[in-house]
């Protein structure tokens, strides 16, 4: 399993791996919104938590279809399915690799892009914390969507439509944590909900995604 993780990380960082695509999209969004809304701090600061979270979510969505599609095209997925590790483990490892190459850079970049959006400095810890807790769920749900659509040509559209509703709880609670951080309100309730959503997703989705893969490999 470690071999699979290392291979996926190596593939992502080599030429054509798509590493940095998510962060680049996130940067574009964070840089353009102030031009669209205007540089006024009073207008930007209230929407900043929502924009940042929507940006992170869409950046995550960009690279989802690569999780299984590339391995399916070159036959690796068939071979992984016959390998002596459970398909559930394969799904979990590939979701982890996606998070490391997409989620983690977003978390590291978010405080910098938050400055562009005039997010108050006191909200930074909560922004990072909410992304840290929320983005693993985004990667894992994405792996499920990618598993369902793996054999389809141009499955990206269907994948987005399937995954977006599943992303909404994470988006609501993640943005709420950041907003409360900005207003110095207590964050316990949304934090617990966000953590709960992520844990539930991490516990259940590998099984659902592996079942979807088995059906698609037939």
């Amino acid at each position, binding site marked *: 399993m470690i071999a699979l993780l290392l291979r996926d990380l190596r593939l992502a960082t080599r030429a054509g791996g798509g590493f940095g695509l998510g962060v680049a999209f996130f940067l574009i969004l964070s840089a353009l919104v102030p031009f669209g809304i205007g540089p006024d701090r009073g207008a930007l600061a209230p929407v900043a938590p929502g924009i940042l979270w929507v940006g992170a979510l869409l950046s995550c969505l960009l690279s989802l279809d690569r999780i299984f599609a590339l391995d399916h095209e*070159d036959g690796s997925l068939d071979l992984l399915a016959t390998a002596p590790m459970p398909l559930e483990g394969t799904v979990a490892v590939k979701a982890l690799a996606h998070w490391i190459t997409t989620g983690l850079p977003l978390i590291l970049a978010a405080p910098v892009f938050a400055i562009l959006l005039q997010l108050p400095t006191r909200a930074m810890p909560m922004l990072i914390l909410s992304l840290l807790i929320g983005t693993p769920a985004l990667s894992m749900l994405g792996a499920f969507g990618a598993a369902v659509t793996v054999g389809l040509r141009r499955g990206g559209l269907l994948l987005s439509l399937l995954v977006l509703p599943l992303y909404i709880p994470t988006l609501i609670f993640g943005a709420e944590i950041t907003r409360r951080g900005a207003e110095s309100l207590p964050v316990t309730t949304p934090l617990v909900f966000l953590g709960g959503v992520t844990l539930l997703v991490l516990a259940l989705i590998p099984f659902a995604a592996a079942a979807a893969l088995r059906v698609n490999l037939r």
Partner: protein
Amino acid sequence: MSLLTVHDLSVARGGLRAVEGVSFSLNPGQALILKGPNGIGKTTLLRTIAGLQVPVAGTVAMAEDAVAYAAHSDGLKSSLTARENLTFWAQVFGGDGIEAALAAMDLAALADRPAGALSAGQKRRLGLARLIVSGRPLWVLDEPTVSLDAASVRRFAQVVGTHLGQGGAALMATHIDLGLPDAQMLDLTPFRARPGPVARPSGFNEAFA
């Protein structure tokens, strides 16, 4: 003790039965070559035996984690070198002997080239080298000699012969003569699923199986 026992196997492709009632067994040291016209279901049968599909009827009995499967696509990443690709599959399957496998398929000189820069035949040889490093006894091969030149085919036949000599077995679908002396043939034509009420789509429960 046989490595693989297939009894009364029926397989389906796209919900329609392909071949039915196939039975055979493979002992260590044996090779079995499946023959039959295009579309009869050789690939489907091999995928079923590899565990990628479920049989419609009948049983496939073998030891757990015995199969190394090789099909039309080789499972290579074009941005990794030949050696990196092979090392990855060796790690996944828990095998070793990467340098020996590279030498056996005449890839030693190409080991540090990206797989994307290899020719189709060279890629195929790398895909077949994966069988050696997988360390698995039963090779299930779907047209293994596609895009190989005559010398490579002979080389591959040697590799298969060595594998059989070490107590392995090979099940393959191929249209050319590999020159394996002891290989048995199984023509699938008599097992073609008969059109009729019994051979209707294999059931809507497939998605929920």
